[in-house]
């Protein structure tokens, strides 16, 4: 890898910019970055769902629905049992089932994958708003944990080491997924299935089985993103709770080029942009109309992508059902 690569250039720029802001006002910068991380986490986790599915050749646009239904289950089961752990488990189960359903539709039924995902989305919207009841509460949320010693480090402590349990689990999953995709035989096989299923098949990999497993696990990760929203961040559930995060995550997945760390970086960039947009309003430095601060992250994403151009290439066999004997 070249030392002067474009990517390292971005990193350097990000570090310098952070240092500059931090030197101007440490506390505010820390708060903005911590907020940016909080905005980013559900997006990054949701992007992982997309990455896991697409790496094996399954397009999942049902992330939004998976998150929504899981957040719903997480909250209402927690409320019913008065136990957030049971709620979390049921949510992960629900998400995995959504993944499994997607796999059945996409792999066994060889259905159109965009349709399959769309079905999950509208099904989740319909079910959650139809079955929603108000006035329920959960005993507590996943409270913020301060990691001993590490949380005391200036800047990095509050940004990285004071979070609820689900955040830590989420970060662990993202890092683990990165390692797994690029450094394990599972990852190699998954990528092979996503790029060239017939060769993988010839080499003895069961395409269908691997796709089933990955899409199901991915559903569980999506559930975690949903449960994070209802059990850790907000502590309640409302209709339309996920507010389009599953779709934004798809964009971040592509932005991050189907690489878990890339998607994480994209999500952090996006989250930070939102946190800065808020900060502009809090500080009332300039009176920018809310509409413009709101679209800032989206405009920045397009501009950055346009400048960095580089053809983004999805896994080759994506979206295609696999049949044995296919070229």
């Amino acid at each position, binding site marked *: 890898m070249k030392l002067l690569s474009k990517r390292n250039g971005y990193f350097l720029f990000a570090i310098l910019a952070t240092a500059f802001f931090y030197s101007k006002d440490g*506390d*505010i910068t*820390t*708060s*903005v970055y*911590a*907020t940016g991380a*909080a*905005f980013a986490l*559900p997006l990054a986790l949701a992007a992982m769902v997309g990455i896991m599915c697409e790496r094996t050749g399954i397009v999942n646009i049902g992330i939004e629905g998976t998150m929504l239904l899981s957040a719903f289950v997480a909250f209402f089961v927690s409320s019913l049992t008065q136990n957030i752990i049971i709620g979390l488990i049921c949510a992960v189960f629900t998400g995995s089932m959504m993944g499994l359903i997607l796999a059945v539709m996409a792999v066994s039924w060889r259905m159109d994958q965009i349709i399959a995902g769309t079905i999950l989305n509208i099904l989740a919207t319909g079910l959650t708003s139809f079955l*929603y*009841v*108000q*006035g329920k*509460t*959960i005993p507590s*949320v996943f*409270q*913020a944990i301060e990691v001993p010693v590490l949380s005391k480090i200036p800047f990095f402590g*509050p940004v990285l080491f004071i979070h609820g349990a689900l955040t830590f689990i989420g970060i662990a999953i993202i890092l683990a997924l990165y390692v797994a995709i690029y450094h394990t035989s599972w990852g190699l096989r998954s990528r092979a299935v996503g790029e060239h299923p017939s060769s993988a098949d010839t080499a003895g990999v069961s395409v269908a089985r691997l796709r089933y497993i990955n899409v199901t696990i991915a559903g569980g990760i999506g559930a975690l993103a949903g449960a994070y*929203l209802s059990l850790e*961040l*907000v*502590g*309640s559930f*409302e*209709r*339309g*709770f*996920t*507010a*389009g*995060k599953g779709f934004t995550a798809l964009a971040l997945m592509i932005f991050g080029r189907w690489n878990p760390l890339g998607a994480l970086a994209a999500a952090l960039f996006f989250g930070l942009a939102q*946190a800065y*947009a*808020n*900060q502009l*309003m*809090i*500080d*009332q430095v300039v009176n920018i109309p*809310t*509409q413009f*601060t*709101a*679209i800032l992250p989206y405009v920045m994403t397009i501009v950055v992508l346009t400048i960095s151009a580089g053809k983004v290439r999805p896994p080759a066999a994506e979206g295609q059902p696999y049949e044995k004997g296919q070229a």
Partner: protein
Amino acid sequence: MIKRISAVTAALALATVGFIVPAQAATTEADCGTAGAFCVGLVTDLGKVDDKSFNQSAWEGAKAGAAKAGGFAKYIETTDSKDYAKNMALFADKGYNVIVTVGFLMGDATAAAAVKYPKIKFIGVDQFNASTATNNTGLIFDEDKAGFLAGYLAAYLTKTNKVGAVFGMKEVLPVRKFGEGYENGIAYGAKERSKKIKSTVVYHAAGDNAFSDPAWGATTANQLLTQGYDIIFGAGGSTGNGALGKVAQKAGAFCIGVDTDQYYTVPEAKACIVTSAEKKLSLGVSTLIAQAKAGTIKGGNFTGQVGLSPFHDLDSKVPAVVKVRLKKVTTGILAGSISTGFKG
């Protein structure tokens, strides 16, 4: 089913409130449109009658008003803002006596319907009524007054001298009235205490989800909390509720609810809700329904009551001297002798 429930609530309301039982039996749905029946229809703005604030309070008011009058109440939830007129017509064609429409966006449609159905009384919640029609009454509120009082209280309760708010869209007038009143109330309190108090209102970006983005509300509230803000006013549907829920997770921080006494409607925020900047929506609606029943409703605009909700669990955290001062300022604000400074 609905019939039975409403009959039961009507009976309960009569029994508990102890009103004089009307001579005829309570109206049921089948009676609507017949002589002597009294039926109230409610059309929500894009939203549900269980939204924990706005539509819900209006619906509760409609139910209570109908029950008191020995009538029947029913709602339709609008899913497309192009259907306002159509949804009102559903009630009108069935001979309902009173139609309550909720939300300022329905103002035009309500005024038009009032012309079309001169015999039906229309109550437009949050709609400033510019028409001279006698069968259309706008129920409006001085949100800036409620916001001012909330801000005044916050100025006395803050320990960090930083007071914030997380709001829905700025473009929605009632929201902005709350916001400006709040900031002016903080400034008023700060001046009394001769302290410098930093105040800020963060508005959600205008858009489809401005009032239904609890995750944004929670994250933004946390951003304020980590910067030392210790009182946060959350207003704007579930976006505001998300902010309240987040503040409740932080020990020692207070939050302020909106529209109704959110101590009851946002139970996850019980730990931090010191008060709510209330618009007595239910009371306003039921009062107007009673007027409609009695035939004394006049058209024009009816200004509903505003004020702060009780302190509930946090009563002990509000010093007695602050309560006294708040009472004085409340009187001044409601009487108009203290200006909220809202310019519009």
